[in-house]
């Protein structure tokens, strides 16, 4: 496999530095929230992780449309890689949210509208990965995945707006929270700085992960082609 390009190496370093700064801000700059205590610091990485999940699934839609228009395998690779990266961050945000909920809501899990729609969204994208593995023909697989990626995205706005449409205990950081919400807090300026910096760092990290995952996807395609050639010979 060829060495990563200079641009990718720079992106890797920049992402690592940004995440290290974000960790520093979370633990040494942002003040402790007095009602929830230290566990509130989970918020600074929980929300950006969930945001990266949403962003990744949106990129999959764009890649799906581009694939259906052009038939270029590159866009299929982008869609697949983006779903994988998005799922990683979706799952890590979900698990961290559950850990935060234990001391704040007094439960690891509840069938709240946000949590339920979020889980359905994650399952939809897990099914995307499974669907791909079930189809042998690369063209057919790419076409199915593109359409599935576009249709599956419906779950993302439903998840996002669920806290505004239904009565929920999930806190709302921006906008008005439901009267049942537990764990809402008002951000002080250092908290806002930490949060927005983390959001930026995670966005850069997403593109870094996507670029690296694309390199792996290219290698996977090469292996698949070589196998097909060998079988055809």
């Amino acid at each position, binding site marked *: 496999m060829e060495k990563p390009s200079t641009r990718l190496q720079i992106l890797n370093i920049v992402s690592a530095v940004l995440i290290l700064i974000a*960790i520093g801000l979370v633990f040494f700059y942002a003040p402790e929230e007095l009602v*929830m205590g230290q566990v509130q610091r989970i918020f600074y990485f*929980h929300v950006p992780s969930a945001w990266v999940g949403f962003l990744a699934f949106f990129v999959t839609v764009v890649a799906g449309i581009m694939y259906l228009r052009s038939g270029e395998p590159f866009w299929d690779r982008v869609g697949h890689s983006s779903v994988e990266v998005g799922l990683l961050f979706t799952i890590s945000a979900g698990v961290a949210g559950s850990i935060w909920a234990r001391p704040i809501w007094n439960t690891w899990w509840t069938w709240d509208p946000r949590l339920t729609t979020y889980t359905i969204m994650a399952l939809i994208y897990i099914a995307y990965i499974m669907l791909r593995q079930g189809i042998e023909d690369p063209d057919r697989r790419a076409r199915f995945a593109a359409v599935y990626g576009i249709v599956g995205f419906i779950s993302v706005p439903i998840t996002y707006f669920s806290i505004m449409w239904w009565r929920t205990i999930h806190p709302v950081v921006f906008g008005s929270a439901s009267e049942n919400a537990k764990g809402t807090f008002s951000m002080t300026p250092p908290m806002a700085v930490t949060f927005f910096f983390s959001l930026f760092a995670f966005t850069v990290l997403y593109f870094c992960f996507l670029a690296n995952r694309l390199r792996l996807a290219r290698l996977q395609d*090469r292996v698949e082609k070589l196998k097909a050639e060998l079988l055809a010979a």
Partner: protein
Amino acid sequence: MLPFPFIDPTPDTVNYLILGYIFLIGLPVLYVISWFVRQRSLQRDIETIESLKADEQKRTAKPATAPELSAKADKPRAS
């Protein structure tokens, strides 16, 4: 420091914070490690396929040399 009367002290939730960050940082780290594992396995696949291809080429090349071999065998010996 003694807590102020009638005010609930801030709860000690450090353990949950640590657990949360283990997942928030640990999962992406594991994912990055998985790239290296998958990359190594794919490179091994490429090596195997290429060696199989080379074997296949050798085998297909053999019949072309067969008439030469039989011609050599037909030649009368010098002795």
